[in-house]
């Protein structure tokens, strides 16, 4: 190669160590924050971090929390979340977070340390087969075995994490690769060799969809997390489309905020703990437009009874989501934002008139279902109802008008948060939907707070879940992150208790939260504020005190111990076989034997 054709950057770059190449690649991919925990195998990266200021490192207290924090960061910003952990136990601790991000389609790049290349396979100290273990836990993973591959792999990891259906990517980095000099090159401008997801929808499929939608008498729009993944513009287009068509719109748990809860065309969340009106509208509709949702079993209930009379349109960026659980008439592969833009244009261009009379009748039927008021509860006496605690939290934060982000743990409190906290914008709601990981909420809120230092970040928690990553209170203290942990303390693994009540004859096997800590003292020992509220009369004051305090707070709210979360579609039941709460008339109870084997 002559001197003239030699790429100038290569030679200069050979002055960089592998660790420096890693940091440079992070910076060039727009990373500002990395959540991590050090160890022997990643010391070279920590040394490089020490010597620069472009990237801020947040020291968590457990690697699982690093991934959840990166998820919160990613979900609330639309950027890729970044994680750094050491080999062996560092990597295995991160696995739960990776699977969580995989199931909820969250873009994460997780760098794991590895023993030096010549020791791989020798059962060396803190060696684990990280690429083997994380293969089914990630969208893709890499083991860098040659210094000349390092820069390319780093860039590719970001491309894969964020393009198409987003997901977690692991880059496993042997220590010698980090120490040895490595060439740096910028992200290639060319297309990826094999991974090129389709984002533009097919015009013919859009035409078929519009023909169905225009002719619909009982339509519904069922929008999911894919709309959030597609960015805030997709939510805006969804709103335009729903307004221009006059259709009812429901969101999945992952889609909350994609369509405003204030909108009169919003019929609430659907699914197992969705509203009566959303589920019955799904069951009775004649045309369903699924946009960025994946017909999850929590949503469909018994498959052979799911929306039996409808023609279905399914728009998804991942062809494997289409026809997986529910066969559809019109599949559309593409990005939710691009699909919505195309639908809006085609809807306008199409000459066919809508059946307005049918739509009016449909809304009358839906309003009838709304009349059941399926989320009504009665707050009376000296015990705080958990629903009421969430409702007041929502009303007070709205009244204060601050930018608010909510995360949750997993259980009844999560469902009550979904039901009683309204979201008007996307990216304000972080929850572990697919994996249902207890311990997600606190670190996720931490990641959100890092990205939005002035916002109000609240983790709506259960007393059992919060203990699964409680050590992160230390991280809050270290970085002065004013996250609020709002515990609905029912002294039970309430969701487990509820299933035991409904399915297992009230035998509450191992679901009581014994020997709970004093959460006020616990908060104080972590340099945070602790508040305990037991009387409904003190609830508002407690909430206001929590929000007003400038630092981290644990608010321990003692709530009714035996409250169940309704409405509920029991496992194996159909949408029109919901169990309603004690305040509502009607509804059908009973879990079949086939239902019992389901989760």
């Amino acid at each position, binding site marked *: 190669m002559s001197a003239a054709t030699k790429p100038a950057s290569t030679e200069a770059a050979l002055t960089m160590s592998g660790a420096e190449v890693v940091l440079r690649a992070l910076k060039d991919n727009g990373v500002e924050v990395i959540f991590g925990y050090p160890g022997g195998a990643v010391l070279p990266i920590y040394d490089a971090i020490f010597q620069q200021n472009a990237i801020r490192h947040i020291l968590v207290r457990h690697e699982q929390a690093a991934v959840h924090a990166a998820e919160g960061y990613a979900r609330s910003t639309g950027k890729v979340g970044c994680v750094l952990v050491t080999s062996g136990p560092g990597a295995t601790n991160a696995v739960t977070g990776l699977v969580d991000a995989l199931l909820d389609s969250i873009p994460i790049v997780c760098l794991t340390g590895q023993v030096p290349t010549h020791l791989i396979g020798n059962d060396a100290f803190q060696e684990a087969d990280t*690429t*083997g273990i994380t*293969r*089914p836990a990630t*969208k*893709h993973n890499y*083991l860098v*075995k040659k210094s000349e591959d390092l820069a390319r792999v780093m860039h590719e990891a970001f491309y*894969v994490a964020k393009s*198409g*259906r987003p997901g977690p990517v692991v880059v496993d980095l042997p220590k010698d690769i980090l120490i040895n000099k490595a060439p740096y090159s910028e992200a290639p401008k060319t297309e990826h*060799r*094999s*991974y090129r997801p389709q984002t533009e929808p097919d015009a013919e499929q859009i035409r078929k969809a519009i023909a169905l939608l225009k002719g619909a008498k009982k339509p519904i729009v069922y929008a999911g997390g894919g709309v959030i993944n597609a960015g805030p513009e997709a939510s805006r287009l969804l709103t335009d489309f729903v307004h221009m068509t006059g259709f009812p719109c429901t969101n999945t748990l992952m889609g909350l905020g994609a369509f405003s809860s204030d909108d009169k065309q919003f019929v609430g969340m659907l699914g197992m703990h969705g509203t009566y009106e959303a589920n019955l509208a799904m069951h009775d509709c004649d045309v369903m437009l699924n946009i960025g949702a994946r017909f999850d079993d929590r949503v469909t209930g018994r498959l052979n009874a799911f929306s039996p009379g409808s023609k279905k349109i399914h728009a998804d960026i*991942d*062809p*494997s989501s*289409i*026809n*997986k659980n529910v*066969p559809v008439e019109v599949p559309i592969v593409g990005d939710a934002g691009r699909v919505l833009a195309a639908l809006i244009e085609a809807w306008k261009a199409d000459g066919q008139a809508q059946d307005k009379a049918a739509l009016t009748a449909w809304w009358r039927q839906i309003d009838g279902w709304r009349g059941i008021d399926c989320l009504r509860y009665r707050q009376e006496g000296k015990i705080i109802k958990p629903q009421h605690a969430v409702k007041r939290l929502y009303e007070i934060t709205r009244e204060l008008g601050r930018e608010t982000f909510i995360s949750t743990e997993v259980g009844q409190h999560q469902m009550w948060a979904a039901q009683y906290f309204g979201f008007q914008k996307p990216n304000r709601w972080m929850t572990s939907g697919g994996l249902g990981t207890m311990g997600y909420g606190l670190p996720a809120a931490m990641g959100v707070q890092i990205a939005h230092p002035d916002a109000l970040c609240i983790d709506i928690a259960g007393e059992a879940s919060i203990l699964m990553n409680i050590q992160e209170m230390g991280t809050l203290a270290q970085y002065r992150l004013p996250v609020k942990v709002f515990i609905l303390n029912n002294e039970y693994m309430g969701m487990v208790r509820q299933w035991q009540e409904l399915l297992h004859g009230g035998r509450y096997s191992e679901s009581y939260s014994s020997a709970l800590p004093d959460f006020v003292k616990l908060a104080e020992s972590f340099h945070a504020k602790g508040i305990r509220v037991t009387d409904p009369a003190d609830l508002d004051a407690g909430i206001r005190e929590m929000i007003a305090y400038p630092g981290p707070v644990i608010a321990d709210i003692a709530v009714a111990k035996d409250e169940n979360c309704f409405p509920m579609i029991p496992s194996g039941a159909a949408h029109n076989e919901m169990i309603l709460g004690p305040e509502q008339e009607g509804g059908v109870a009973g879990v079949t034997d086939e239902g019992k084997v389901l989760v």
Partner: protein
Amino acid sequence: MSEFANAPRAATIAVLVENEPGILARVVGLFSGRGYNIDSLTVAPVDETGRISRITIVTSGTEMVIEQIKAQLDRLVPVHKVSDLTLEGPHLTRELALIKVVGKGELRMEALRLADAFRARVVDATVESFVFEMTGNADKIDAFCALMRPIGLVEVSRTGAVAIARGPRGIN
């Protein structure tokens, strides 16, 4: 729903992949992790640089499952192309087998006669054994092995199927 018949069918799927470490584990892990069948699987590099490998998988399932298998394969990052040869038209399937038969006297003669009828070649012989080589589709090899069993079949080694579409069209 009618297009998704519930009867399972066999499918021969060709997958072009980046020839990188772990790719086979990804494909096999996908099948085991999601509970799909693998009847056979073969793999070898197929381009002049050795960068691209071709995996041939014979599987079975309902139409909906086969569609899932193809979509799941296609979303693996190092996968270039997934082609359902069964669906896409006439194709050829071949498998290579090495079959060891031990026997003496009249049994030896019978083994050779059958081998001739099946166009199996003798690739190794001792006074008491033969190794036959044969190519064909799986049914033909199955049939040959079944006939050899009472004669003295002791060992079989098979490659699994490789397949290619008939006619001028290439996979790309």
